[in-house]
């Protein structure tokens, strides 16, 4: 379970990215976070694994306090939270396998990972993660030789290799074309259903949010302005979250069948 209690994040320079956010997410939920760029979506996710330290409030992940956590404790929390990035964040000059093994770093002594002496168990976990996203044949290919969609799957495999209970995805399809976007969103949905991993995804395409989300969270200028079932959401809700009318730029507009879909 994830519990945000009155969480605020103020960046150096005084920008308030999150303002008094409180929310609870149950195990196994699939939550989509929407908002304009700069609304605090990315900060919300990064506060959850401590990549961005919260300025005040409390964030509990499965009962462990993240705010103020340091050293071994912070690493332990992070090891249970997988993260997927907009730009994939792969080490592009090494193999897919080495990238996925990054997800096992917290379980292996530094000297072993430094010299590439990974235990068989960890290699096995990495292979299984690659099988789950369907690119195990690329295990020994250089990451930079893959397409964008394949690279994001490596990113997902890396997060899966952590065997996490929570998965964070920060604009996972923003750098991908529409068809690949649907494939990656489908992967994330399947992983959520099959493995029961609590999933939080930042999206800015409203139609994608509607197609895959179950619970929707809306952020506006760092404040939580919407939290509810996505079935209850209409264009007015989005208009309120965005503070302006919906434009074609807010839609991916291509559904998996190739036709044009609206919100």
């Amino acid at each position, binding site marked *: 379970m994830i519990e945000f209690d009155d969480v605020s994040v103020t960046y150096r320079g005084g920008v308030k990215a999150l303002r008094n956010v409180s929310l609870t997410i149950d195990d196994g939920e699939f939550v989509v976070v929407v908002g304009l760029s700069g609304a605090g979506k990315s900060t919300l996710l990064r506060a959850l694994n401590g*990549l961005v330290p919260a300025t005040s409030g409390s964030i509990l992940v499965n009962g462990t306090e993240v705010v103020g956590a340091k050293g071994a404790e912070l690493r332990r929390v992070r090891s249970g*939270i997988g*993260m997927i*990035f907009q730009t994939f964040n792969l*080490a592009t000059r090494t193999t897919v396998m080495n990238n996925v093994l990054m997800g096992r*770093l*917290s379980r292996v002594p*530094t000297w072993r*990972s430094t010299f590439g002496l990974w235990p068989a168990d960890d290699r096995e976990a990495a292979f299984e993660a690659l099988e789950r996203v369907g690119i195990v044949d690329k295990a020994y290919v250089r990451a930079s030789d893959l397409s964008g969609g394949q690279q994001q799957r490596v990113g997902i495999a890396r997060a899966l290799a952590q065997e996490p209970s929570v998965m964070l995805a920060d604009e996972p399809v923003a750098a991908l074309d529409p068809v690949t976007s649907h494939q990656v969103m489908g992967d994330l949905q399947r992983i959520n259903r099959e493995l029961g991993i609590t999933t939080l995804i930042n999206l800015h395409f409203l139609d994608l949010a509607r197609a895959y989300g179950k619970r929707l969270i809306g952020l506006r200028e760092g404040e939580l302005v919407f939290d509810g079932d996505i079935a209850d959401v209409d264009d007015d809700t989005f208009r309120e979250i965005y503070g302006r009318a919906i434009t074609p730029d807010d839609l991916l507009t291509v559904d998996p069948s190739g036709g044009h879909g609206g919100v």
Partner: protein
Amino acid sequence: MSDTAIEAPATVSARPRKPRMRLTTALAALGVVAFTIRAARESGWEWTSFITVWTNPLWQRFWPIDWDFVLDRNNVLEPLIETFQIAVVATVIGCVIAMPIGFLMSQLTSPNRPTFFVVRSVMNVIRAIPDLLLAVILVAAVSIGAFGGAIALTVFSTAVLVKLFSETIDSADPRPLEAALAAGGRHTAAVRAGVLPEVFPAYVAYSAYVFELNVRASVVIGLVGGGGIGRVIEAQRQFFRYDRILGILIIIFVIVAVIEQISDAIRRRVL
């Protein structure tokens, strides 16, 4: 064709005048010229010496080359091999030491700010020591011969490579490191997994370049007692046997040119 083909727009804004040279630029240029003239005068600069230098009888001693001496195995080949060995040992040890120090000296990968500042200050001090002076001191402190020269060159290679390597790390993509840290990795493990693969090709390229520098420098270090071919050159110079020195220089030139080609090829391949 009519002369109204190009119509002037309704409002024409004036063409800007070419800006004049700024006063500060002009003053700076003037200052450099004035300083150079004064410095040349005080250091006894004479254009005529460019011609008179060639009338020195010294030049006659360069010719004909004493190939009998130069091509004798014991005279030149053995010391050359020693020079080469000094360069190899200094490069390999220097580059191995430079890798961890390079990571400590980059803002991206240093574990904390105090470490970064201490390492950077120490390396700045080491780099400030002229390498020849370092060789003279180390040769005196360790022993005359190849070992003293090798130590001096090792320090020199480490310092050069740390500087080049840490600057590469500074400009490396921080995002894979962020991903490794987000997965719960320790700092060192995350740097190894997220940053090293991205900067390793540059590391190899710079190591090849440092080897190139070391082959040249090991010749010079021999002049001050560091062993190798430099010692032979120094001995022959004392007897004014420039005919032999020219022969040795030609051989060194060929070797350095070959090594430069190889090191260039390595750099082109990995970068």
